[in-house]
């Protein structure tokens, strides 16, 4: 600890880094957040950023159109590597979404006040990440127009989905996750939509926000039930978010493939998901607070806490890597031992070392108070962790599939232009949706910020 730094989590530190800047009232938080949507002119920077993101999304559209015309042969996948970029990206995106639910549900149940100003856009990020994720298994089927086969419906052929298959569990887990996240987000938005309805000047905006707010009027009787529903949703979303990445890890761990068939997978996947998700929340929060001057709402306390969560989940992930090694060696199973050696010395070893560097070594800087309070470092770190988590999924998918039991079934994998175009394209889609979101909806929950103002003013009394 450097000299002059107040003791960890003391009242002193809380005063120095509050969850909301001083001097805010119900009216001023409302004005400040709703102004971003209603009165602030759309800046040139927004148009330029949106245009770039939208063009990148256009590349995805072209890549998917070409895929539908030609089939999955345009990708680098071929037997034995049937799961290339599509599954790597699917797992990566869905993992990113997990932080949103964690912030909105688990931190809500734990009564963490610092969640208030970041939960709205973290939930939006979840939805957009799930949208990007859902795209990949869909197009990976090769015939996305037949995707409804995965849904149980009484078909004339009399066939039903195979409920013993983890791939069908995935369908249910991801679609439930998408639906519940959407409801959670929307229920949280209702009071804020009413605020926008009451404050917008232009008639069309009044009508649109009016319809979306469903006539919310802040009645005490409504709040009474609303709070029950919100608490229940938080309680339901908590086991749900833990189950989703567990189910996704079953896609791997149920298969009898070296390196996949391990019991550490579900907890290690969930920790990894939260790790990458918090990294993505930081990647979004840091520019957002800068551009819209929200430093009083998304304070250093928030960034510091998110960095700590990243550090903790990163260590769980590191433990997961260690256990993978340990179990392979301890089991004495020659295929598992061989796979571990392939990670260290095989053709994809550079990816493995890069992953260790990004996910384990570099984030150790977060132990330092100074580093956690350096916004530029945090931003770079968040990108590094995102890259690291993507590499992790690449290593898991590709190394195991290229090194199966029989040497005659070995292969190599390299992505093609269209793999990259689809992947980078979904990032464009993600950023496009984020741009639209901050422009038309309040990126911070106004109603909850007012509650925070009320609570902090009570604390001071």
């Amino acid at each position, binding site marked *: 600890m450097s000299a002059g730094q107040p003791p960890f989590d003391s009242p002193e530190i809380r005063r120095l880094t509050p969850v909301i800047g001083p001097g805010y*009232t*119900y*009216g001023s938080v*409302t004005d400040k957040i709703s102004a971003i949507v209603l009165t602030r002119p759309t800046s040139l920077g927004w148009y330029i950023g949106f245009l770039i993101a939208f063009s990148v999304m256009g590349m995805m559209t072209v890549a998917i159109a070409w895929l539908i015309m030609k089939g999955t042969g345009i990708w680098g996948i071929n037997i034995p590597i049937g799961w290339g970029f599509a599954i790597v990206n699917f797992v990566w995106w869905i993992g990113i979404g997990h932080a949103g639910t964690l912030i909105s549900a688990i931190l809500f149940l734990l009564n963490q006040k610092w969640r208030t100003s970041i939960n709205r856009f973290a939930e939006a990020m979840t939805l957009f990440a799930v949208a990007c994720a859902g795209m990949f298994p869909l197009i990976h089927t090769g015939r996305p127009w037949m995707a409804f086969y995965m849904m*149980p419906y009484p078909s004339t052929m*009399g066939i*039903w*989905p*195979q*409920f*013993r298959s*983890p791939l*069908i*569990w995935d369908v*249910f*887990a991801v679609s*439930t996750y998408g*639906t*519940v996240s959407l*409801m*959670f987000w929307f*229920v949280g938005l209702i*009071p804020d939509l*009413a*605020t926008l*309805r*009451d*404050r917008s000047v232009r008639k069309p905006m009044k009508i649109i926000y*009016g*319809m979306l707010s*469903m*006539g*919310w*009027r*802040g*009645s*005490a*009787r*409504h*709040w*009474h*039930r*609303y*709070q*029950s*529903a919100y608490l*229940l*949703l938080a309680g*339901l*979303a908590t*086991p*749900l978010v833990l*189950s989703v990445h567990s*189910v996704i890890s*079953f896609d791997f761990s149920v298969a009898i493939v070296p390196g996949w068939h391990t019991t550490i997978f579900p907890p290690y996947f969930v920790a990894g998901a939260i790790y990458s998700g918090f990294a993505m929340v930081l990647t979004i929060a840091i520019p957002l607070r800068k551009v819209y001057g929200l430093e009083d709402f998304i304070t250093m306390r928030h960034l510091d806490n998110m960095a700590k969560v990243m550090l903790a989940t990163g260590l769980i992930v590191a433990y997961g890597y260690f256990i993978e090694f340990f179990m392979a060696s301890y089991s004495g199973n020659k295929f598992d031992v061989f796979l571990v050696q392939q990670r260290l010395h095989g053709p994809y070893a550079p990816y493995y070392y890069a992953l260790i560097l990004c996910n384990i070594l570099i984030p150790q800087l977060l132990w330092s108070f100074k580093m956690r309070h350096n916004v530029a470092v945090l931003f770079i770190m968040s990108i590094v962790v995102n890259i690291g988590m993507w590499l992790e999924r690449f290593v898991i998918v590709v190394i195991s599939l290229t090194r199966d039991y029989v040497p005659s079934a070995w292969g190599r994998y390299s992505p093609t232009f269209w793999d990259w175009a689809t992947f980078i394209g979904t990032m464009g889609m993600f950023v496009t949706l984020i741009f639209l979101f901050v422009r038309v909806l309040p990126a911070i929950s106004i*109603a*909850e910020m*007012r*509650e925070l103002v*009320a609570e902090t003013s009570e604390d001071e009394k």
Partner: protein
Amino acid sequence: MQHLHRSHIYGVMGEFGDPAELIHAVEKIRAAGYRRVNAYSPFPVEGLSEALGLKRNMVSTICLLGGLTGGLGGFLFQYWVATTAYPMNIGGRPLNSWPAFIPVTFELTILGASLAAVFGMLALNKLPQPHHPVFNVPRFTHASADRFFVCIEAKDPKFQLTECARILQEVHAHHITEVSDD
């Protein structure tokens, strides 16, 4: 007070600047014997439900029923598919391989409970409801920003316009207005 000649009134409304005043006012009004009283606030105010005498609501019961329906329905459906509708003999393994049905059962439990909680809450609140008499009060736009409102409704057996206005004045409400029912 304006528009006293009008016959259809929804109630009388008073405005407050902070949650403590609001709770104080609600307690006073209820102590005076009024029962059809409602409060409006820009965020959930702690202690307001108790002051208004609101009982436990039905949302959690509906949520439980939704969860049970989702879970039981989901499991029985998978059981029916695996044993009756589309049985597949894979190496003589049992058709009712129930452990494999748990993930989907779990997800459907959460889905059913969440849908029930959200739609149950909306239905009990009678939302969507595009119009409500309280929106006739011009200053009510502040109910979604920085002001707190109390409305004594005309349906209250004790309701009497001037008397209600007097009691609101007594608890220091600002902008006491009649709420018309058009």
